[in-house]
């Protein structure tokens, strides 16, 4: 694994600069913080949506700033939480007097920093609410869902809440649909190979050539079990079973996301997706829409995750609502 980079310590700043220079109609740098990205055309009459988190997961987090999705994003270093100051700036930039909803993944540093930032801006008169996405079923038991890590499912929350916010809905309403969406999501992933942190120049973890780790986190956190590399079908069956054990989806309508962690190619995602669709069809689970691609990555890590979002009419409508973002195809 080789990287096309300059000085590793400029990795994040150059990535941000590249994103803005490449899509100047979508993204803009906050005037008060070099690690905060906002929409190029700010919205004026809606709840602001803010996220933030470590770099190295594009399109997560920054990529999902755009009409119909988020208003701003605080960007940490690779795999590291943004600071309280950065988050506070992101919130201020997203606020246009209608309150701000923060949507973030459940990681200790992020959660604490967002909390602190919300306290700071509250003193400035900005009302905020926070939804902590916790979709990774590998990371805590079902009874402790709120303790789970947030991974690819986060994007569904961005999308659904983002669409509702665009209609001018109240902070409370946007908050509620985000909470509901989060509680309707389950994700399980598998890692096949590590990625290289630009500054460290070495792999984040080690894994044998014939091994995979089910439930490994997007920063290389240990998963549920390390197993021998198996066929795509066996692996997919295992993942589907674990998800369905966690979450009864029989006769339900769902949105599906088959997400590559980076290096795993579309061809393999479709081999997995095929099996997921077959398995779910057997359980009479109706797949309303299937998102196959790289939605939440760990740079060039090999692996993939399967996310299900249980739908209702409200969520469905918001899922399909138009966006203006290079990483979301309507």
């Amino acid at each position, binding site marked *: 694994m080789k990287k096309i980079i300059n000085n590793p310590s400029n990795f994040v700043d150059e990535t941000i600069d590249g994103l803005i220079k490449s899509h100047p109609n979508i993204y803009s740098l906050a005037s008060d913080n070099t690690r905060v990205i906002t929409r190029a055309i700010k919205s004026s009459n809606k709840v602001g949506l803010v996220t933030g988190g*470590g770099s190295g997961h594009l399109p997560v987090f920054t990529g999902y700033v755009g009409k119909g999705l988020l208003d701003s994003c605080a960007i*940490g*270093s690779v*795999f*590291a*939480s*943004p*600071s*309280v*100051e950065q988050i506070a700036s992101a919130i201020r930039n997203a606020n246009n007097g209608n309150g701000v909803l923060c949507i973030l993944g459940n*990681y*200790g*540093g992020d959660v*604490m*920093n967002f*909390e*602190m930032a919300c306290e700071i801006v509250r003193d400035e008169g900005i009302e905020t609410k926070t939804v902590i996405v916790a979709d990774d079923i*590998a*990371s*805590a*038991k079902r009874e*402790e869902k709120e*303790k*789970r*890590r947030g991974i690819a499912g986060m994007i569904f929350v961005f999308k659904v809440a983002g669409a509702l916010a665009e209609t001018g809905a109240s902070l409370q309403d946007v908050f509620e649909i985000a909470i509901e969406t989060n509680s309707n999501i389950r994700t399980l992933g598998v890692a096949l190979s590590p990625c290289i942190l630009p500054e*460290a120049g070495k792999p*984040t*973890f080690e894994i044998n050539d014939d091994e995979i780790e089910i439930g490994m*986190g997007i*920063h*290389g*956190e*240990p998963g549920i079990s390390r197993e021998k590399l198996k066929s795509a079908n066996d692996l997919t069956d295992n993942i589907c079973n674990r998800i369905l054990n966690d979450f009864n989806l029989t006769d339900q309508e769902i949105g599906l996301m088959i997400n590559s962690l980076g290096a795993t190619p579309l061809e393999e995602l479709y081999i997995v997706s095929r099996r997921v669709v077959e398995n779910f069809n057997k359980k009479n689970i109706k797949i309303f829409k299937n998102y196959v691609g790289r939605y939440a990555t760990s740079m060039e890590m090999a692996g993939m995750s399967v996310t299900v979002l249980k739908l209702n009419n409200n969520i469905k409508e918001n899922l399909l609502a138009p966006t203006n973002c290079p990483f979301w195809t309507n």
Partner: protein
Amino acid sequence: MLNKENLIIILDKLFDQSKKYYDDFNSADAKIGDGDLGITILHGLEEIQKNKVSFNNDMGENFMICSKAFVKRSGSSFGTLIAFSLMNISKKIDGKKECDHHDIVTIFEIALKTILDRGKTKLGDKTIADTLNLIIHKIKKSKNYNHEIKSACTKALENFKGKKILVGRARMFEDKTTKFDDPGMFALKKLSEIF
């Protein structure tokens, strides 16, 4: 008694220690978490080094400088908890040129309170809070800080051997975690060896 001069000495020693145990901290964390604890500690202390030229006789300001430095480079739970603690400590000892015994106990008490508040955790969860709690307990009784801190850090780690880790990234491993030290407590023990 803690003043600018011995604060700097302590920070220098901690920085050396963080370099020495960089890999150990990372791998202790990698067993149950994301393996960045060494990075978190080293980066925070490194940034403090860069900023200690601004240290002055107001210990409150010095702690604030440390807090800001930690916040700047660290993006993980440990760093965040330390940074919040340093900030709250800074407010409490604002204007003081030196910290007497009472202040020193207060410093640790504020750190503990901050960590429990911000970390939404409780004593017994097997985190750095438990180590701090034992430090406070011990230095309340004895001013032999170096000895007490060192022995508290060692003792706390021992006390929790075989217990489950209940917060942080480790929570999900449940029973598996009984065989691991909490990485933060482990790091405090190694760092305390400077005393």
